[in-house]
């Protein structure tokens, strides 16, 4: 089995399924913190999808975008939790 076929027909569908599962949690999550955690995991799965797609399409420059995604995920989590805590404190 060719590695491109393996990645296209087995790995990418599994990753898409897990993205859907996380997105369900993102929609129904009872609190705002659940949604922040789900968003963090969505971006992390996005990094791995970018990595797999960069193997399939033979374009290693996609890795730069993965690096930016890793930065943004951490930044968004920290910013969200900072403002969650601040909102509670100001009430």
């Amino acid at each position, binding site marked *: 089995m060719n*590695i491109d076929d393996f*990645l296209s027909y087995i790995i990418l569908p599994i990753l898409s399924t897990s993205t859907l599962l*996380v997105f369900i*949690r993102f929609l129904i999550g009872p609190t705002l913190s*659940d949604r922040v955690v*789900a968003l*963090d995991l969505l971006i992390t799965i996005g990094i791995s999808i970018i990595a797999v797609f960069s193997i399939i399409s033979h374009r290693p420059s996609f890795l730069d975008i993965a690096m930016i995604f890793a930065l943004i995920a951490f930044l968004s989590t920290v910013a969200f*939790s900072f403002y969650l*805590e601040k909102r509670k404190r100001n009430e």
Partner: protein
Amino acid sequence: MNDILIMIIISLGTLFILLAAIGLLRMPDLYLRISVTTKAATLGVGLILIGLALYYLETSITTRVIAIIVFLLLTAPIGAHVIGRASYFIGVPLWKKTKMDELKGMYNTKTHDLMSGSEEEEEKEKVKEGKKR
């Protein structure tokens, strides 16, 4: 031979990511969900990126992959801690079968100071009243 190794590594990483997604959906509590996503997803992404580095076998790509992995390993615990702390403050409920909550009463709810449990009585009062700073 090399292709089979790459396939095995990427399959393992994908399995861990799928388990993290199922855990995020099925766990009963926010704190358990944080625990699942931090460990399993970080390991899965790390394995997939290692597979990518083995596929290309170039210095520039390996450097980028190592940078991404180190950054993820550094930031995932910090992000989990920060969001868990903020959620505890804003009163996200614990699972109803939780046996013990060691942080209960140890945090000042106004100033968010933490007691270690080994303070003297007057220091404890100070922290409780928010006069420590």
